[in-house]
């Protein structure tokens, strides 16, 4: 079998980097992008200067500021991050259609067979890295390997602004000295359990007999063993083959005001609808995710008679799910998802011309947003919302 060439691209301190583009005064300083400590904000992204003090994302801002008191706190600009992310993805898409965005600042590329065109994958990674830097002023790290698992681990290893190449056949040797927690897919709980067995490095895990892993971890034991050997054959799946599209918000402050929650639902519904339309998809199933202050989480879903990509329809069903599920307690996180995705054309209606008009309106609004940014046109009911209410999360 011919070895694949997979690139994992990870933007370095992405939110901070975008803030620095817009405000050069932040360059060189310890910068934290996140919610304000008064509203129990959390760190969404920290510059490398701040990370030296132990600041990391998802840490409460108050704690981060204690660790690094001279850090400059910036509240986020979500629209800008999405916009810059889209521009990075557009550059990546120039090299292969097999592009799988993993989050706002990460993506996999399958560049197998492009060697004749672009040279060896390591050289290609350097070329893309240079282009992102030159065109957008953003720094990115690359992992190059024969599969997604190893590429992802490699990109993280020498951050920032690094290209780490793992040649074919050296996957296991590359992983062996790394701590088990670095293994993609191994959560904190599994890692603790493995460490209790005396396994410290991925190499330790690789040497563990597969039967013992099967006995202890059941079906996932074999997966662990394969991962430790650097074996992974999951394909790079372009996003339109995603099983679901979702948007969720963690509020800096838990919310119990029904009107505010409804407004958030509307915003999330619109956002999911816009993403569906951007990908030419429609969702047959609408899901709601609700997390309370005590982290208890519930999900509900409903299946529609016909798939939709219209915000008001998603909102209508999302709201019904919410009203049925919400027990009036303060809400920490709200999410809306669309699944059961289809890209087939919708069944047109004989009578109600309303939804056809809605589709035309949506298309026009999408064009405006594509040109002038996501916030260029908004529902009036969404205008009053203060910026602090949401905070996205940059992935590590």
């Amino acid at each position: 079998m011919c070895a694949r060439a997979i690139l994992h691209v990870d933007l370095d301190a992405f939110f901070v980097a975008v803030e620095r583009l817009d405000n050069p005064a932040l360059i060189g300083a310890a910068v934290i992008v996140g919610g304000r400590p008064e509203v129990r904000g959390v760190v969404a992204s920290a510059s490398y200067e701040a990370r030296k003090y132990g600041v990391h994302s998802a840490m409460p801002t108050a704690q981060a500021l204690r660790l690094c008191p001279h850090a400059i706190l910036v509240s986020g600009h979500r629209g800008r991050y999405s916009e810059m992310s889209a521009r990075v993805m557009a550059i990546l898409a120039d090299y292969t259609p097999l592009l799988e965005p993993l989050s706002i600042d990460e993506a996999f590329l399958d560049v197998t067979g492009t060697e004749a065109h672009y040279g060896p994958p390591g050289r290609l990674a350097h070329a893309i890295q240079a282009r992102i830097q030159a065109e957008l002023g953003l720094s990115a790290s690359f992992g190059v390997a024969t599969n997604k698992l190893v590429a992802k681990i490699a990109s993280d290893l020498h951050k920032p602004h690094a290209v780490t190449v793992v040649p074919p056949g050296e996957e296991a040797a590359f992983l062996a000295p790394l701590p088990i927690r670095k293994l993609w897919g191994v959560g904190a709980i599994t890692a603790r359990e493995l460490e209790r067995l005396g396994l410290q490095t991925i190499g330790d895990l690789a040497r563990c007999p597969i039967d013992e892993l099967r006995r202890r971890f059941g079906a996932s034991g074999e997966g662990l063993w394969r991962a430790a050997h650097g074996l992974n054959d999951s394909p790079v799946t372009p996003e339109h083959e995603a099983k679901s599209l979702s948007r969720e918000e963690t509020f800096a402050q838990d919310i119990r005001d029904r009107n505010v929650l409804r407004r958030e639902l509307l915003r999330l519904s619109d956002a999911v609808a816009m993403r569906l339309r951007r990908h030419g998809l429609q969702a047959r199933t609408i899901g709601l995710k609700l997390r309370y202050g005590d982290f208890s989480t519930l999900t509900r879903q409903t299946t529609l008679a016909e798939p939709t990509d219209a915000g008001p329809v998603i909102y209508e069903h999302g709201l019904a799910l919410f009203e049925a599920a919400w027990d009036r307690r303060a809400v920490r996180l709200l999410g809306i998802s669309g699944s059961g995705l289809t890209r087939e054309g919708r069944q047109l209606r004989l009578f109600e011309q309303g939804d056809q008009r809605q589709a035309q309106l949506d298309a026009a609004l999408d064009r405006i947003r594509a040109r002038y940014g996501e916030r260029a046109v908004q529902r009036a009911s969404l205008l009053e919302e203060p910026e602090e209410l949401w905070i996205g999360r940059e992935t590590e």
Partner: protein
Amino acid sequence: MRVSVLQENLAKGLSIVGRAVSTRSTLPVLSNILLSTDEERLKLAATNLEVGVSCWLGAQIEDDGAVTLPARLLTDWVNSVTPDRIDMELSVRSMSVHLKCGRFESNIKGIDASEFPLIPTGDGEEPLNLPPATLRKIIDQVVFAAADAKDTSRPALTGVLARFEGDRLTLAATDGYRLSLRRTALPAAAPADISVIVPARSLQEVSRISGEADPEQPVELAVAAARNQILFRLCGKGEAEKGTFYQVALVSQLIDAKFPDFNAIIPKSYTTRTILDTAALQRALKVASLFARDASDRVIFSITPGETETAGRLTVRATSAEAGDNVSELDAVVEGAAVEIAFNVRYMMEVIAVIDTPEVVLETTRSDRPGVFRPVGAGPEEFTHVIMPMQLQR
């Protein structure tokens, strides 16, 4: 009550009234079937309060009386015993019925017949007469286009519009995506011009029962506007035959809603007119449906005119990301411009299934405007099916 009835006849009677039994009711007696003696016949009746069905069977009546028995248990019992004579005797004191058939003997507990709702049987209304085969055909040609009864947001669309105008009857049904329209001449003028909406489920029952009625005897149809009901009375094939009924009366509530103005959405013109062999189209749709299943049931019609009018072509395409794809080609008489249009294959199959002429015509304009199916050779007003396409590209 003491009654003897042939197992085949009772089984038939139970299958006729059984569909009207309420499946989810807070009223226990609605899960039961009423058995009562009525002028030397055994009458069975069931209702879910939307539709009520009564069926008279030839029987030997020893003692008059009435009782209700659980529909499910009684039906299963009758369908399980041997095809012999069933003797039933009600014990009024214990409200249970002793049943004996061949070497089977059972006692089934019932509920007092006085608790059963009164089902009007239509006496006193002035009826219209229609041959059962005609009634069945016109119902079948429209009823499938009605919206699902569970769609409570649009009650009018869960029914079939029946418009009586002089000696014309028009039936129409639409679920918002397609419209089926059937006009027929009545043997005599209706007593009054009237439009009513009949639940599609009720008409499906009428159609089903019509298939087993005596073809020589007309179905009587009457609208009781004051009671907001429509009534149908059908005659069985005669008592000499086993497994038949003497008479059936079905009464249905009407839907009190406004039916949409369907005339406005029937296209007045077309740019492409395609005549197709009905059986060939049916086969092509069937094959395409195998691949359209996981692609929202979408099939794409490409219609191309030929050098001469008769040398036209229809290609039916269906593509599934998972299963594969299919292309079928059909000869067609194409008049007008080439057109590409996508349809839901299930909708197409349903309409083709009720067209019984050897050829069918499809009239189209644009890929986002409705297409019209008509049987070739039938009168232009007889049957029209308007079907909205699916979006072509996305």
